[in-house]
Each structure stands twice: as C-alpha cells, then as structure tokens.
C-alpha cells in the first residue's frame, strides 16, 4: 500500500493543510474527490480540524451512529474538550477505547491527546507508542515529551521519524518544535521552516504566522516578530495564542500590556499564560510574607 500521506498521495494536500493550521480549509475541503478507501481518513482529518476550531457539537453529531472506532475516538475527544476536567466521563471512555482499539491511528491520536491533556501522560505515551508508522502520532509524542521537558526523548522520536519519513512537512515542523527548545542555531532553522509556511499565500495560517513570530522573538528580532504577530492578528484578531505571545513580546519591549491581558482574559480565560501568572502571583504573596522589616514604620 502506498502511503496516502506521501507527497503524491491523495491525502497529502488535506493532511498538509491540517498541519499548517489551515483548519477551516480542511473543514471546507471537497471530500467527494477522494477514492472510497480514503473517505474515512479524510473525514477524520476534517473532524480533527473541527475540534481545533472548537466545533465540538458538530463533531459529536457527525460521529454519532458510526461504528468505526475512529468516530468513537472523535466523539470522546469532542466530549472531553467541550468541558475538560479530570472527572470527565470521557476519560474513562478514552481509556477503554485505548485498550480495545489501541492499534487504530485516530484512536491513538485523539485518545492520546485527551489523556495527555488530562495529565495522564504515561498512559497517553503508552497508547501512542503502539503506532505503526504514523507521523501524526510521532508529532503528538514529540509534543508530549517536550512538554514534560524530555528533549532527549523528543529528539529520539523525531530522528527516528526522519529516517523513514524523510523531508515530510510534519517532520520538519516537529523538528522545529524541538529546535525551539534547543536554541542557538536551531532557532534560525526553526524560523526558516515556520517562515516558509507563514509567508507563502497557500500555506499561511494563524498558527504558522504565530510560530514564525515566536521564533523571531527567540532570535531577539522584536520588530520582525511584532510584524508577524500583526499579520496573524489580521487573520484572527482574538486568537488567544497570538494575544498571549503578544503580551510576552510587548513586555519584553517595555510596552503596556494591560489591554492585551484583558483581551486574552476574554478570549481564553484558561490560557496557560494567565494560569501561570495567577499561580506566580499567589506564590509571590506567600513568599513575600517571609520577609518583614525589623522595625515597622
């Protein structure tokens, strides 16, 4: 079987579009063109794009009544991400599905994502490790390893993938994620990958522009970074990731960020940046109590 995702495979374009962050394009893709054996994987990509666009109800209704485990996984993901919580009933379902259908790629990706976001990282990795040469899964593994600061394992996964997937876009992207952790010359390398995506009309997306801007920020090119963020905001003014990173950028530049914080609060009150800051605030208050002047004025 030829690889449907390879450069000349039928799914190559929609797959690339998904990983370039062009989710709406994927949702709107004309799926009639796919031969019957690819209808399912293509539809699943569309469902995953909907998940990325937070269209959980649509996913649930489209997945309803379908027998394949892929759809079951999509339904679970929709249920979980609609209301993420450690007590979500979706978690148990995901674990169960992972056990019975662990060989299914979409189950690996979707349930793995659910488990990882619920903090069950080891379970997620165990599930993902079952994959049979899926780059999408490798990307998820790389991200999970990076988020738990295992740069070594992330690199291992990416290097292995590079051996059989060569110059696939997703490999490049995953390597760029790693590069952003490694720094030094890798920042520049990551920048080239992101910039190539972000500055070509066909592949541009909020995600690629944001990624480019972040790599520039790490390279210390603040003005260029700001320009890229502005470009991203031109596509989606309220994007939480863009706002969060803009807050970082403007803080570095010594600008006032109060307005942007408000906007982020509105767009996504649970954004990592806000959570981190709140945590540090309470940590600060607690730590500051330890010191008092000898004499109160």
């Amino acid at each position, binding site marked *: 079987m030829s690889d449907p995702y390879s450069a000349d495979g039928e799914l190559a374009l929609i797959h690339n579009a998904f990983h370039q*962050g062009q*989710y709406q394009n994927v949702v709107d893709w004309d799926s009639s063109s796919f031969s019957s054996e690819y209808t399912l994987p293509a539809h699943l990509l569309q469902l*995953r794009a909907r*998940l*990325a666009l937070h269209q959980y109800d649509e996913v649930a209704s489209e997945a309803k009544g379908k027998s394949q485990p892929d759809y079951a996984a999509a339904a679970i993901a929709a249920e979980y991400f609609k209301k993420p919580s450690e007590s979500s009933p979706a978690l148990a379902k995901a674990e169960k599905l992972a056990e019975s259908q662990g060989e299914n790629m979409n189950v690996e990706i*979707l349930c793995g*994502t*659910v488990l*990882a*976001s619920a903090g069950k990282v*080891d379970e997620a*990795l*165990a599930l993902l*490790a079952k994959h049979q*040469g899926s780059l999408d899964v490798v*990307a*998820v*593994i790389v*991200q999970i390893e990076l*988020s738990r*600061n*295992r*740069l*070594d*394992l992330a690199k*291992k996964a990416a*290097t*292995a*993938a590079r051996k059989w997937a060569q110059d696939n876009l997703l490999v490049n992207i995953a390597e760029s*994620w790693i590069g*952003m*952790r490694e*720094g*030094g*010359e890798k*920042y520049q390398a990551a920048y080239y990958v992101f910039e190539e995506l972000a500055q070509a009309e066909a592949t541009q997306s909020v995600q690629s522009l944001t*990624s480019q801007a*972040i790599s520039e*920020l*790490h390279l210390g090119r603040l003005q260029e970074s700001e320009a890229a963020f502005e470009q991203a905001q031109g596509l989606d003014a309220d994007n939480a*990731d863009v706002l969060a*990173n803009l*807050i*970082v950028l403007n*803080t*570095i*530049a010594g600008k006032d960020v109060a307005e942007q914080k408000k906007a982020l609060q509105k767009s996504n009150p649970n954004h*990592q*940046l806000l959570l*981190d800051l709140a945590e*540090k605030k309470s*940590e*600060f208050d607690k*730590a*500051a109590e330890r*010191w008092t*002047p*000898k*004499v109160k*004025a």
Partner: protein
Amino acid sequence: MSAPTMLTKFESKSSRAKGIAFHPKRPWILVALHSSTIQLWDYRMGTLIDRFEEHDGPVRGVDFHKSQPMFVSGGDDYKIKVWNYNTKRCIFTLTGHLDYVRTVFFHHELPWILSSSDDQTIRIWNWQNRTLICTMTGHNHYVMCAQFHPKDDLVVSASLDQSVRVWDISGLRKKHSAPTSMSFEDQMARANSSQADVFGNTDAIVKFVLEGHDRAVNWVAFHPTLPLIVSAGDDRLVKLWRMSETKAWEVDTCRGHFQNVDACLFHPHQDLIISVGEDKTIRVWDLNKRTSVQSFKENDRFWVIAAHPEINLFAAGHDNGVMVFKLERERPASAISQNGKLYYITKEKHVRSYDFTANSESPSMVSLKKLGSPWVPPRTISHNPSENAILVTSPADGGSYELVHLPKDASGAVEPTDTKRGPGTSAVFVQRNRFAVFNSGHLQIDIRDLQNSVTKTISCPSGTTDISFAGHGTLLLITASSVILYDIQQKKRLAELAVNGVKYVVWTSDFSHAALLSKHNVTIVTRHLQQISTLHETIRIKSATWDDTGVLLYSTLNHIKYTLMNGDNGIICTQEQTSYLVKVKGWNVYCLDRHAKPKVLRIDPTEYRFKLALVKRNYEEMLNIIKTSKLVGQSIISYVQKKGYPEIALQFVQDPQTRFELALECGNLEVAVEMAKTLDRQQLWERLGAEALAQGNHQIVEMAYQKQRSFDKLSFLYLATGDRDKLNRMTKIAEHRGDMQSLFQNTIYLGDVEKRIEMLKEADQYALAYLAAKSNGLDEEAASILEAAGIEEDQVKLPTLGEPIVAPKAVVPVFRINWPTKGTGTSAFEKVLMGEAGDEDFAPAETYGEDNVDEPERVGGLDDEDDEGDVEGWDMGEDVDAEAESDFVNVEASEAGAGSSEADLWARNSPIAADHVAAGSLETAMQLLNRQVGAVNFKPIQWRFEEIYTASRTFLPATPGLPPLVNYVRRTVDETNTRKVLPLIPRDLESIIATEVTAGKTQMRTNKLDEGLKSYRRVLQLLMVNAVATANELDDAKKLIHSAGQYTLAISIELERRKLVSNQADISSLSEDTRKRALELSAYFTMPEMEAPHVTLALYAAMNFAYKSKQLSSALSFANSLIERGTNAKFKENAKKIKTTCERNPSDALEVEFDQFAEFEVCAASYTPIYSGSPSATCPFDGTKYQAKYKGTVCKICEVAEIGAPASGIRLLG
C-alpha cells in the same frame, strides 16, 4: 578574458582632464582641466589642496619643477604661466605662441621651459629671465607634444603632420650655459654653419624625422635610459622607435587600441609601455615583445597619462577627471604558517621563508615565474606545514591558483614540478588535506583534496568577493558590506556582521579574535563576529598583526600604530616607507617592505603594554613597566588620571605641583603635605586644609592653617578639638599681635573673663568691661572699673543680665589623635608597590565573598545537576542514532518520567535575582535580593517580578487539543550549552535610560514632580531586579542607582515642602515653625546630587523662596551658588539682582537649620541634616542616608530594602 580591475588609489571627479603632473616628492598631482582650472590634489589623503584659475579657456599642459616650489601651465589662451604653489600665485606669464599651447615641460636641470603649440612651433623659454630663447620650426601642422630628453640635449616632438621629430639643442645649451666664453669667431662660425635652418637659427636643429604613423601623432616620449622613443597616434597605433648617433628607425608597432591613442610613456623601471586612448582603455605592453600585457577598460575616454618618477604610481586623465593607480600590487603575498615560519613571495616571484627564531631568511625555494602573467605578482600564499606545500593565487587571467610542493631542502629558485592548478579568485588551506578555492564568477567555493579533485561544493551568498580561512573548518566570506562566518562541514552560516569594504582579515593565533581591515577602518571582532571595537584612520590602513597579549599592531601608509581590543589606540612610530606587518615578538616587529624584503623594526611597546595592564588591572605588570622603562611621559600620566586612577598616576609624577594635585584627587594627604611643604604656597595650603578638614585629619588642618596664618580658623579649630593649651597660646599670640578682635574671640572660646575684661579696658571699652565684670559676678573688678572711669555705680543703667555663658569644656581630648576616619585604603596598586600583595589579595577576593553568600541554595542545585548530567544525559547526540536504528515504532520508555525544564536550569546557572524570577523561582529570587540589597518589602516590586516572568516564556501552538508548547526566551540567543543558557530580562539599562530616566528629567524640568518621583522610583526598582552584560554596564547601572536615589530624595523633599505650605508661594501667614521648616526643606532640596540644570532649578526655587520670606542671607548664598554653578542665563540674571538687594542687608528673619558650608546629607525619612561623622544608617540598595533611628525600617526611596541591613551588594552580572 575578463578585464582585471585596476588598482585604483585615488579618483577625482571634474571636467575633462588634459594635463597631469606628479610632484616628485610630495603626494600631489596637478590636473589641468578643460574648464580652465588647474587643481592640486593630495592623492594620498584624497583632498583638493588648491585651485588655480587664471587661464582663459582650457588648460592642456602642466609640469612641476623638480626642486623649486613652482609649476608651469599652458592653455588655449596661448599663454604659458609659471606659478608658485606656496604663495598660490601666478609669478609671470610667457606670451609669444600664436595658437593653443599643447604641452609644457621644465628642463631637468637648466632653467628652461619647453612648449609645443598649434602655431606649429616648439619654443624654449628661460624662466629665470623670462625670455623666449628658441623657436623651433619645421612641423607643418599643430605640434601636439614636445619633451626634453632626460639626459641628452635632445627634444622630441609629435605633430598632426604625422611625423615625429628629434631635435638637437646642444647649440642652445652652449650658447646659454657659457655665453661669455663664446668668441665672436665662434658665433660667426655658428651663424655660417651649413646646418642652420631656414631662419639661420643653429640653436636647435632637426636631427631625425620619423615617419611611420599614417595619421596625426598625439604624443611622444623618450625612454628614461635607453635610446628609445615611443609615440602614439590617431592611426590607433603605438610605435616604438630606436635611434643611434646617426640614424633613427622604427622598431615595431603595438596594435590593439581601436580608437585614437592620445598619450603613451615608458614605465620608469620596468620594460613596459603604457598607453591610453579614446577607446577608454589603458593598455600595458611588453617593451621587449611588443605584446599586450594588460588592458583596463574604463568608462571614459582617456586623454593623458603620467608616471610618478619614483614610486609605482601612474595617473590618467579622462573625460570626467583623473585616476591615480598602481600597475601592480606592492603588497607582497605572505603567510605565517602553523610551523611558525613566514612564507612569502619576492619581487622576482621566488618563494622564500623566514625563521623568526633564527631571524634568518631561507634561500629561494621555488620560482613561480610561470604562474599567471609575468607582469602580475601573486596575490596570496597559504602554507600547509604537514605537506610542506603552498597554495598561491594570482589575479591574472581572471584569477588562478596553483598548489606547489616545496622541495625538502631549499636549493634555489627551481621550477616547481608536479603542480596542481585551476581557475579561482582565492584559495586557502582549510585542513591538512583540503583546500578551498573561491570562484567569484560562479559564486562558488570548491573544497578540493590534494589531488585537486573537488570533494564538496558550497555556493556563496551573492556579493561575495573573497574568502579567508577562519580556523577549524570555517571560512570567512567577505562581501562588500558584510563578513560571514561559514561552517564548511555543516554548510551553514554561523554568524554575520555588517561591515563595509573589508579587504584583509587578521586572526589571532588561536582564532579567538580577528581584525577586519578595510581601507580606512579596523574592526575588531570575536570568533563569533561580535564586534568589539572599531576605529577609523584618515589614511589607508595597510596591514595588521596581533601581539600575543591581544594588542593589534597595524600599519598605515606612514605609521605603525596599535589598538587594544577596547579600541584604545596610539602611534608606535612613523615610517617613511610603507611596511606590511607580519608578526610582533617582544620589541621586534617583523614586516615586509614594498620590495618584499623582510625587515625587523625595533619598537617600544611600553605604552600599549602599560595600557593593557591597566585595562586588565594587572598592577604588578604596571609596576614592572614603571620600574624598568625609563620614559614614562606626561601623556601616560594624564591617560591614567583620565581613566580614573589618580593614585596610579601619582606613582609616576615627579613634578611637585602635579603630585600635589593628584594626591589631593586621590585623597593621599601624606603626599599632599610633603608636596605642599616643598612648594609652600598659600593657595596650596588652603586647598590642603580644605581636603584635610573633609577627611577629619585636624592635625594637617592645623598645619595648613598655621601656614596660612589663619588665626581665626585656628582658634576655632582648637575650640572644636578642645585643645585649651593651644587656645591659650592663641590668646598670647593675639596679645602679641595686638589684635583685639582675635583676643576677644579667644577669651570667649576659653571662657577667660579676666582676660577679656583686661582687654576691654585696654581698648578703652570701659562700658563693656564693666558689663562683663558685672555679669560674671566680678563685683570687685566692676568697682575698680567704675573708679577708673570716674563714675558712680548708680549712674550706670544696666540691662537685665542673664546667666554668664560658660565656655564648653572638652569631654574627650580629641585633639590628641585625629578623628577616626574611614581608611582611604591603599589601592591594590599601591599594595603591589609596597610589595605586600599576596597572590590572591586583589579584587577577586571580593567576588569570592559574594559567591559564598550565594552558596546555600546553589549547593542543592549543583547536586541535582550532577545527577541529571549522568542519568538523563542532555548530550545524547550519539545514543539517539544508535538506538533509533533498532525500531522506529517503539520509542523506548525506559527512562520514563518528566525532565527538568529550562527555567530550572536558569535558576541553577545564575546568581542574579532577575534570572531566578524569570525561572519562576520567586522565593530564591527574594532570598538573593534580601542578601544582596537587604530587600524585605517585596510588594512594590511585584510588578517587576511579573514583568520578568511574563517575558520569559512563549506559547507555541502545536497539536490541537494539547496545551501550547512553552519555550523559554533566552538572552543568550547563540548559546546551546545548557549550563550557560540564561533568560532574557526585559528592560535593559539602555531602555531604562531612554524611557524612565529621560521621562524623569523632563518631569523634573517641567515641574511635574509627582510623576518625576514615580519615574525615578521606577528606575530604582527596574534596576534592582535586572541583569547587565558587561562590567562597564554594571558600573553604569550602579551609578544610575545612586543618581536615581538622589533624584527620588530631592523630589521627595520638595514635595514635602509643597505639602507643608499647601503649595503657596507666600508663606507669611503660616506659623513660624512651619515657615522655618519650609525654608529648611527648600534649602535641602538643593543638596542631593543632581545634574547641573536640576541643581540650578533647586537653587533658583530656594533663592526665590528665601527672598520672598525675607531670608536675605540665605537668599544671598543661594544666589551666589546660582551665579557660580547655574546653567541658566536668565536665572543667573535674576540671581545677580537678588544678590545686589540682599547684600545691602544680609540677614535672615528666621534662623533655619541649614549651613551651606557644612558637609551633610539629608535624611530621607525625616528630611533633617545628617552631618558627616554623626551616626546614620544607609539603604543597602540605593545608598540613601538616614538618621540612625530609622535603621531597620524600609527605605523611603526604593521602598524595598531595609535600612542598615547587612548586604553583599547588588549582583547584576553573572
């Protein structure tokens, strides 16, 4: 074949240049322009020295006189003018030609000028008596050029009549060199000579007529030594002629110009002919073979060419100006090999080496005669010690390289065998068995092995012009506007720096630094192309070499100079001839001269070694230099002093006056006293007294006052120190001097009533004497006074008497010893001088101390790090490959568990509080701040913590559904070693200065003090949690902390005053206490250290406030300060007015606690003065002073640190 580019040294833009002349000695050329101007240029500096504008119409010919300060010109106004270039005037004009004058030349020894003209004549003039001495006729069309023979009595001329004529002028010389010795018979004989021309003129006769050009001949010239003539004509040919005593004939023709050839000449030293023409080319021909050697195509039609008589320089005039150029590079190709020897190519194109240890030159090893063109010297050489091979490049024929194996034993200039060659612009060895060849045409670098086969190809960025080896598998690519460090293995750019026109790159031997030389700049960069410094020279920089200690020596056209890495530079010596430096060793500079001969110059490196030692604080070295070098000039002293080391400068100086000044500057009273004694001048004692007083050394103060015979001050000093014996003596002295006032003063100080009464009686002040006696209860004495005055007691009406004043008694006999002073300390340098310096007695000790402070929380960190270093292995590069091979599907989870984040590393890697904040480790950050600056109240800097933390991480969106990937923003962008990465800290020093400090100053000036207070406090808080990159920045940051503290204090005082008086200017309605306090605050406002304009503001406010409140004495003193120190003319004007008013009645309505002469600081909590010596406490962060009772409270200025808390000092540098 692509045309080689010319080695142009100078170009000027003007209208068409028709005549050119080089000055024989100075770097000058004269340019005669079609526009009627004659320009005098300094082609070395590229400056126009003068313009001479008296000709009417185009000027065609010019020539310098060999020894006199004059030149001659001829033009279309038929005139020949002789000028003095010193006085810049035309001395006289020779008229006689009847048409355009084409060329003018001086004779090499006789006072003659030769001119050619369109009137078909050639004329010879005597410029001493300004007469025409000979007219040569014969040409029957315009004469375009006529020149004297350099030795013989011959003239050669070229004409539009297609002929070249050679004239014999020996008759003219005879007639004019010995006119008196010529007998009448001789003259008759000459006159009747059959060779007389048609006018009967025998002075100049045609010797040969050379016919061969079949169009007009434009130019002709004699060979400097051989009997040869070269001519150029409109038939596009350059013809070579030969002559003997009796005949002349055409030798050969040089063909190649495709337009009129307008000028030609013989190369002064080499067997070459150079011609220029309207086909816009300069062509060089081989004199012996008459074949073309080189041809330079330019953009303008050429009209004239001239050669410098001595140096390898030519000038060509064209439609748009003049260009001065070299025909060949003088820079000898040379390279220092890794085996320590110099390899270079001589002018004969022989390869030789030079051994620096033996100071000996090897015999020629091979001859490179066959390389490139015979007339073009090789450009570069690169030596490979392991193969004993050289790689040579030549620019000829579009550039080529040749790999030559050197013979084992040098046996002379043999032809090399088994060479490898190919086309290329430049070529260098990059490894033992690889070399890189750059081809500018294809913008490509080939890496070749020693068999000359390509192993790798690299394409260069466009604009690359040259490459240079940059150590260990890297190359430096040079473009017109940048240099790029390129990794050959990885085929990628490592770094890039924008720097214009780099021509040569000189690396230190360990490749840690490089000097990039361009025409006029030296840029020093690190291995990673970080620019360290750059310097500009007005004249051309020729070469450079590094001293082992990191000092760069470089040569310009006429100097050898040095520069330290920090850009501090100076001249080592001047030299007449340019030399190309290759190495410095001790006092020897090795160089190659213009003729590629190795030379050793002795230099004196004392100056730069000293500066270097100063920069590195290597005091022992400095001392050593001072001890061993004889000459330490005034410049070094002022240099050291300027750099802020007066105590070091002091060690050099002998001159007592300077020693005194320096001693005062560094507070060394001992030396100052010694010098003051030597010089014994009033003024010096006065200044010494002031300094000693400031230091509290009252014994020296006493001496200074004694020397000044300043009795009042002495008495007061004794009073202050409680030295009654001395006071008694002062009384005696006063008596002796008959100074009643002084006596009175001393008796008061002593509380000696009897003496006072006696003195008053003596001064016939019986009333006062009586009063004194009465008030002190000396009734008997009182009675006797009355008696003496002849007055009854009831006649005296006494005021109410209070308690008699009792003179204070000394509690502690402080006069015996000096007041305890803070040790001015012996500088590290002085310690060395005294020989007490231990090995580690210096500055580092301090740093150790700080490290200890940080120890506790680092210990834990270190352990962790070690564990992970082994177990987790961040440097897993190789392992990854090995395991990945096995099975891609199963990424082993053997080493499960989460890792530690980069933020954790930051905290481990740095002792800087800001880095801990960025790492999110707030508690350790607070611990650090508490230890370093005594911080206890963190609330006010919470915003700063949040800012730093926010700036430390970005959120990269990745897989949908998973939280974004957190990445950590580094300030060490290029660093990948996890033990060295550090976070970016927002708001660096530069941005603080640009934003808050600027705002603060503006707010200060525009009287927005509330905001100003906020700005300066913000500066303090920003700096408290921050990081800097260099020691210099650290100094600046510390200075800024101090100054922001002072501003905050000043503004607080003023705001307090405004609050007190509710912002009113008129305070007469307020209570006396309030008024007094307001006046004090207004005075204190002038005390903190601020910039002059702000002190001016404070003084102005205080002056006006005092004046309005009838404090005329205070107002006067502020007015005086304002006049003396103020920066605002209008304020000064007002101050002068107030001064005049106040001087009439200088008294204060209220007594306020402000003594402008006293040394005090203002407490930042109570706003009361803290006199020097009285107890106080200090904020460990900003250094603000407080009354002792505030110790332990939070500083009012920074609002964070605890006053008087123990602290190790702020740490901003890792």
